[in-house]
């Protein structure tokens, strides 16, 4: 007799991060966090120095999630949040909600963002169909 098995479909975050990172040479970092600030997986381009310390990365994720939670307070009026940009002098941070998680992408600053976002969204759409 075989035991019943529950099949839970979860995105393969490792592969997804790798695909997104490799979709543009301008992307420095990509990662997924859940609503409890846990990094599910992340990938960073080789040979790049991190701009933040580990402690500062935790703080940065906290600020990002706080902003995301607060933005959801307007969902009933404005619909779902799809994308945010924060452009600093040294880096641009992009967040995209995906299946209840938050995709974090950092890129070089002051580049043409549209093609990058189009690629990332296309990758996410393909993964959603899987």
């Amino acid at each position, binding site marked *: 007799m075989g035991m019943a098995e529950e099949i839970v479909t979860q995105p393969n975050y490792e592969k997804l991060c790798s695909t997104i990172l490799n979709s543009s040479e301008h992307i420095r970092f990509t990662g997924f966090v859940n609503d*409890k*600030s*846990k990094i599910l997986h992340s990938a960073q381009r080789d040979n790049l120095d991190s701009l933040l310390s580990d402690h500062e990365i*935790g*703080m940065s*994720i*906290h600020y990002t999630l706080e902003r995301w939670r*607060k933005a*959801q*307070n307007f*969902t*009933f009026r404005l619909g779902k949040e799809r994308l945010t940009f924060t452009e600093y002098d040294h880096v641009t941070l992009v967040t995209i909600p995906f299946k209840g998680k938050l995709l974090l992408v950092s890129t070089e600053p002051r580049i043409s963002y549209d093609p990058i976002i189009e690629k990332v969204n296309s990758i996410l759409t393909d993964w959603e169909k899987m």
Partner: protein
Amino acid sequence: MENGTITYVQSLREDLGIFRVTPENGVPDFKAGQFLTLGLPLESKIVNRAYSIASSPENKKFFEFVIRWVRRPLPGRLTSLLFNAKVGDKISWAKPAGNLTINNTLASGEKDTRRIVCIGGGTGLAPFVSFAQHLHDTNDKREIVVLHGASYVDELSYKQLLTDLENESIDKGKDKWNFKYRAAISRPEEWTNRAWNGHKGRIEQFLRSNDDGKSPLDELVGEKITKDNTMFYVCGWQGTIDGTMDYLKTKNFVTEKNKREDGSYEVKFESYG
């Protein structure tokens, strides 16, 4: 409805605040643990909503409330008005009501001397802040334990007051004032909670037995919790009530709503979700 004025607003977080309402004609008699219906005008109508009273019946100056501004899926109408109100704004209120009150006698009619354990999830702490101050001000000799569950440390709305009450218990001695307060943080891994070194997890896990058969609550009070030595009061989301009852049912505790034929029970609860 009676008239009153908002006389104090303390913002604890963007979505959590302490509010005081001073009635025009004084605070009426009420029982610790009851709620009050507040009303504010919106588009030529009065919008009403009930909130648990956090102040004690002995406080005749004002009613106090701790209120969370929940906005998902939709923001509450009165709570939204309250979080946009200013000190000095007029507010209406209806007489206190509710049954989450302290039992002083057993079903047999004898005096209830059992330990009181209060479990509050989030702003479900409010009635137990009222309990604690009332039992303190009336020199009640029962042992009182207040357990508060929150997601984040900045939601521990009455930490200072309840810690002071516990310290007073230590200073005076248990024979004079017997009070303990503990909190649990359910998201300890989040950055906001990085300095939290207390209990981690859901508040009802205070009742879960460890490998040695004792629960953290057993250890806190120094004996096994039984239906003969402890009365539970629970307030919070339905998940907190259900989680608590999952532990207590195995110990043959029953709720007021399912009391025994002789009228006895050991759990009173109020759910706001």
